[in-house]
């Protein structure tokens, strides 16, 4: 039986208990448009965290925010606080 090596970049989510920090660009009712530290945009479900608004940093696992990392500041909201 041939089993190729699993590529973490293509989808190993559960076994690393992946948690990706992302910054909210726009928050709607259940969904937020977020940007990760590499600049990629994602749609993230936000029902499980409180008070999400532009600038909030979230910890995202499998497309769902499971924690807020900190309260947003003006710097973060306009993006100037991020590298």
């Amino acid at each position, binding site marked *: 039986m041939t*089993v190729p090596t699993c590529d973490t970049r293509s989808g190993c989510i559960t076994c690393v208990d992946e948690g990706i*920090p992302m910054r909210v660009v726009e928050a709607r009712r259940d969904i937020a448009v977020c940007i990760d530290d590499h600049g990629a945009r994602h749609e993230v479900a936000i029902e499980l965290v409180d008070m999400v608004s532009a600038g909030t940093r979230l910890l995202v*696992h*499998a497309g769902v925010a499971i924690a807020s990392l900190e309260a947003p500041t003006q710097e973060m909201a306009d993006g100037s606080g991020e590298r």
Partner: protein
Amino acid sequence: MRFVDEFRDAQLGRAVGGEILSTLEPGRHYKVMEVCGGHTHSIYKYGIDDLLPENVELVHGPGCPVCVIPMGRVDDGIAVALNDGVIFTCFGDMLRVPGSEQTLLDAKAQGADVRMVYSPLDALRIARTNPEREVVFFAIGFETTAPSTALTLKRAKAEGVRNFSCVCNHVTIVPPLRALLESPDLRLDGFIGPGHVCTVVGARPFEFIPADYQRPVVISGFEPLDILQSIHMILRQLKEGRREVENQYTRVVPREGNLRALQVLAEVFELRPHFEWRGLGFISQSALKLSDAYRDFDAEERFAVPGVRVADPKACQCGEVLKGVIKPWECKVFGTACTPEHAIGTCMVSPEGACAAYYNYGRYARDKEAV
């Protein structure tokens, strides 16, 4: 990058390594288990093991949900995937896990419509856009991942998406830890707690470890300095005679966890009476199934599944590796019959499995400086 660079500082890492050295009692051998596969991955990726003195040994725990899926459950998933008209979805790491005869990737090669998704919400999206097809999500993962499945099922129910269902293999981390602690052939001095599981469940579920088994637990982040600091905190507890749950990952983990996520889990899931863990056997109340309110979304009710228990290959010693009784390189088939390209056991299939981590990063040098 914020929250990343500051936790990968090599100079600080060496300083914490020095702190660890000064905390050790000469002549004592320490065994610390990292529960989570993500920690195993970081340890070998960043060479954290090499910064530790010989008498601090890291033992790899059962926290890789791919590694603990028994072959019979993979067979059940493949049986569902082979039904006409089914779109079978799963995370990428599941595709290559061997069942008794084949993998989901093999089933796809035979014509089954097996698709990798990044989130169960993506599977639900596929169901919405393919109303004439049955869409099944093969759910795996610990308490970190279970809320995403629960949220997806809540949305499916609210929207009346009838062609969506789920094969639920979600597992919980506390019962296998208790089983490990009851194991007579195991000697551990402390635990590096699973940071992202604790983001959901909080620190409280781990309090039985110091209370009942007198071992320290430190909930840890996943960057190199997080792990080194957590090891230092465990060793400091041991030196000071304390046994408690400490939280190193305070920037993410609240002590009470995520109450909303816990509410959603309680609504959508209930505990299975028992569940088989690869290498560990059947463990009571260690996995989740859909609650009565969500039974209509249970793929095991909707499709015929074999439900047959399949014994692990005899040569495979994943069980001993998962219990930390042997190191991966001590397995009879490690690196010979069992490699990432030709895996026999699940610990070699998943890159976060202890065997693959050892194999891929070459971290099986066994000579280190004694204290």
